[in-house]
């Protein structure tokens, strides 16, 4: 078991609100990723759940039991820190067994459990080493071992992969997912890396300025972003945005021309319209309905192996970015004008909220 509930959670330092009324239910055995730009409150949320920071108001419960006022040691959670926080004076074996020692387990049983975990993570030959004699990946494994050996209800990961190099990061990512499948414990994973979030999460929580912007599966987050912040934050290269307003007959008045869509928004409402780079295609001579053809000039091409990023500019000055497959790239030539098509159903419309 390991169901976590945040209710109206608030955390402020002085007059600054770090978390501003957070409501979230995390299901048992779920792999939940907290994603957001730095300073959005995701790490603070994790530390509040761990009990390392005190809550300003609201409650946190684990399996229906209110833990808001409990000490970290009484919450039955384990945490892996960004810098691993291995105890420098202890060996790998002592590091992993340290939490069991607190539970007053017999040394024999501790050794047994430590060996079991070391075996699972391939650390058996390193048990007598001190942390400073380990590589980054090995330290990471020890930190994970120390977390899983206690079989807690909830695992917390605070950007655990950001100190590893690219290859190792992919390897550890796969390993953490495999462990999650095997152990089935609720896992809350904080990261600012959207690719990591998309690859690992059952559900992603996007946070900004202490508030939840959207909760959903990676697919929902990517294809149905609810707010402009989410739309702009997820995706690489990021979504193209155009400022516009609703004109008569539910048409969008945009710098690149008028586009007809189905919308319930009111006449004259200011909006941001977004389209994902991969949804911008070369116009097909056989024009389909719901397609909007726009003439643009190719201003830059970045070749990235299997795909290329093409920047183009409309005569109004509106810049668009598109992602093109390698075998299509011959059709784009720097400095020439081309016709592109923007499918109406690929447009995301976000009403502007007046500040």
């Amino acid at each position, binding site marked *: 078991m390991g169901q976590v509930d945040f209710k109206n959670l608030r955390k402020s330092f002085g007059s600054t609100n770090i978390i501003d009324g957070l409501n979230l239910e995390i299901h048992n055995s779920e792999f939940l990723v907290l994603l957001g730009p730095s300073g959005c409150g995701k790490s603070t949320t994790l*530390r509040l759940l761990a009990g*390392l920071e005190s809550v300003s108001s609201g409650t946190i419960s684990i399996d229906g039991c209110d833990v808001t006022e409990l*000490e970290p*040691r009484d919450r039955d959670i384990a945490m892996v820190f*960004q810098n691993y*926080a291995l105890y*420098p*004076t202890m060996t790998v074996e002592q590091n992993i067994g*340290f939490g069991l020692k607190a*539970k007053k387990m017999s040394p024999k049983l501790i050794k047994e459990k430590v060996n079991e975990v070391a075996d699972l993570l391939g650390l058996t030959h390193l048990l007598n080493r001190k942390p400073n004699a380990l590589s980054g990946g090995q330290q990471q494994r020890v930190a994970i071992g120390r977390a899983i050996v206690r079989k807690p209800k909830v695992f917390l990961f605070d950007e655990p992969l950001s100190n590893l190099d690219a290859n190792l990061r992919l390897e550890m990512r796969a390993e953490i997912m495999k462990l999650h499948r095997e152990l089935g414990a609720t896992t809350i994973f904080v990261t600012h890396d959207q690719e990591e979030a998309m690859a690992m999460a059952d559900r992603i929580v996007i946070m900004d300025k202490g508030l939840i912007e959207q909760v959903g599966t990676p697919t929902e987050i990517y294809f149905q972003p609810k707010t402009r912040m989410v739309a702009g934050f997820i995706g690489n290269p990021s979504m193209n945005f155009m400022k516009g307003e609703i004109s008569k007959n539910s048409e969008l008045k945009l710098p690149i021309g008028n586009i007809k869509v189905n919308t319930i928004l009111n006449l004259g409402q200011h909006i941001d319209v977004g389209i994902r780079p991969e949804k911008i295609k070369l116009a097909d001579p056989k024009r389909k309905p719901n397609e909007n053809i726009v003439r643009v000039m190719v201003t830059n091409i970045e070749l990235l192996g299997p795909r290329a990023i093409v920047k183009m500019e409309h005569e109004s000055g509106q810049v668009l970015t598109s992602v093109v497959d390698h075998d299509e790239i011959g059709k784009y030539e720097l400095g020439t004008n081309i016709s592109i098509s923007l499918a109406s159903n690929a447009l995301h419309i976000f009403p502007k909220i007046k500040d």
Partner: protein
Amino acid sequence: MIVSFENRLSRFLGTTAIFIAIILVLFPFLWIFLESIKPPSLGGRPDIWRFEPSWENWHEIVFNSNVPLNILNSFFIALITVVISLICGAPAAYAFSRFRGFQGARYSILAAEMMPPAILILPLFLLLYKLELIDSRVGVITAHLTFVVPVVAWFLIGFFDEVPKDLEDQAMIDGYTRFQAFYKVILPAVRPGLAAAGIFGFVLSWNDLFYSLLLTGAESRTLPVAIAGFWTFRGIELGKMAVAILIAVIPVLILSYSIQKHLIRGIGGSGVKY
């Protein structure tokens, strides 16, 4: 390798300067050593350089004087002072290191250091007099704590600053209280700092003359007071004094050498670094 004239000149000047500095520092030691092995008949004649070495002063000090008792007193007082200072200073330093309210707070520890000892001695003397602790080791230890505790605490702040806060967070998640996290995880991580601070505090107490001179009598007299005592009405007993000085200096030299690596970090380490 071609070395230009300027380069060679600057290297020559540098070497010469260091050489002169070393002579200035080491000459008194050489001179004191020579005084200690001069026959007593030549005592008080620093101008004589050629003589037959004699160990009479050493024999006299080791077997026929109170100096061994003074050494024991000094050692005992310094040791107890350091142990208490570490027990009080380490938690204090930890608290200052983790305290994020007012950055200048840590400098308040140094306030005690900035006061001239003359201000403290009068109340201290009256206090110890009422408690009948004049001429007792406990009295001297009390006095020494007034300046060793702040120094040890100040010294350790920098070491605690370098221990990531995540370590105690991790220990608390692992099932320990904050205090357990402090002594099971954080203290072992600053062991080199504890050793260095302890040695530094030991040397401070060992070398103190001011408080010891005013608070000790025959029973609890420390080595620096005994050394000063060789300056008598009949004149300075230079030979014996030299022996006592050497005995006093040797542990300081050995201890300082053993912590030299941590010394700079400890003294300067608690300053600005964020």
